[in-house]
């Protein structure tokens, strides 16, 4: 649905007048008697309610058009099940059906990883409780308080909240303005830091240290160098005895000798 068509839809919806309570009862009785015209009239007169509820769930990963469509499905369910004898206005009854249908649609379609419906419902409840609590007491409730109000555990709430984050492609383009005023495209992956990458300062320091040690080793006397090598267990090829005074075999023999003592 394009912007023009959705505007036209809003215009059409606005043409239908709202029903009075007496009209609602009259239509409800007719619907119970199987009147399709009464059903259509009841639905059309409450389309505004469906749009109003659907609009509250915008920007949650679903298109407004889809939300309105789902809200209308919920409205139709409410019309079928409405019981006028209980004495409530239709809108009071219908809004719960509409909200449920819209929420279920969002749960199934807004994220790549689907959350169970009951978990998403709990998430809505958490948000609702927080909002009400803040309005009443002026501060946000703690996790323990929310868990207490909802009759669940803190672990469950944490688990639900941790799963509720939205997903985004690592290859998503991110546009930003460059120095010349134009915009450049970069991918999200380009700006996410790699925590496991070696620290460049540490790498530079290590290179510097290695260089310093290399130079210092060159300044050691022959005796010092031999002792450092022996102390650090740096051995060379058994065949090359010229520059190094000890071989692996000799170390093993010396160790065996030391154990005997």
């Amino acid at each position, binding site marked *: 649905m394009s912007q023009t068509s959705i505007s036209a839809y809003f215009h059409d919806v606005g043409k239908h007048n709202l029903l009075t309570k007496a009209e609602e009862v009259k239509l409800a009785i007719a619907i119970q008697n199987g009147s399709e015209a009464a059903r259509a009239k009841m639905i059309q007169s409450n389309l505004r309610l469906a749009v109003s509820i659907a609009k509250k769930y915008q920007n949650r990963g679903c298109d407004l058009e889809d939300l309105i469509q789902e809200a209308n499905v919920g409205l139709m369910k409410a019309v079928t099940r409405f019981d006028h004898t209980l004495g409530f206005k239709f809108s009071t009854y219908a809004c719960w059906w509409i909200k449920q249908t819209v929420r279920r649609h969002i749960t199934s379609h807004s994220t790549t990883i689907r959350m169970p419906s009951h978990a998403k419902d709990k998430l809505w409840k958490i948000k609702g409780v927080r909002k009400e609590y803040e309005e009443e007491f002026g501060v946000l409730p703690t996790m323990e308080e929310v868990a207490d109000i909802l009759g669940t555990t803190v672990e469950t709430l944490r688990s639900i909240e941790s799963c509720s984050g939205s997903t985004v492609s690592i290859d998503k383009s991110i546009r930003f303005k460059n120095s010349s005023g134009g915009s450049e495209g970069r991918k999200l992956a380009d700006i996410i830091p790699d925590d496991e990458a070696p620290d460049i300062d540490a790498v530079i320091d290590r290179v510097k240290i290695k260089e310093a040690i290399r130079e210092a080793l060159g300044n050691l006397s022959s*005796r010092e160098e031999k*002792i450092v090598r022996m102390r650090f267990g740096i051995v060379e090829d058994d065949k090359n005895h010229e520059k190094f005074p000890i071989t692996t075999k000799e170390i093993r023999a010396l160790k065996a000798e030391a154990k005997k003592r």
Partner: protein
Amino acid sequence: MPKGFKTKNGYATAVDRGGLNYRQIAEKMNAAGIKMNHSTARNVFLSALKKIATPICETLSVDQDPDDLSRNPDFQSSIAQIVADIYSEQDI
């Protein structure tokens, strides 16, 4: 050193790397015709490490006495690894 005294950093684990203790080094050097006892072997080793520690302190602008640093077991372990790397890269 009092009985039961434990050093702050412990001893360098040169032997774990396949290195020799000072007595073994002295023995080996004596066999090679360079007369020395285990104390001398240790002193020569620490002197060599001091020569290595000095340029490191200068390079990294570390405000620490190279003499103290050369005795530090952690420093000795680190140097052992780097020196082994250097020797494996090229024969000095």
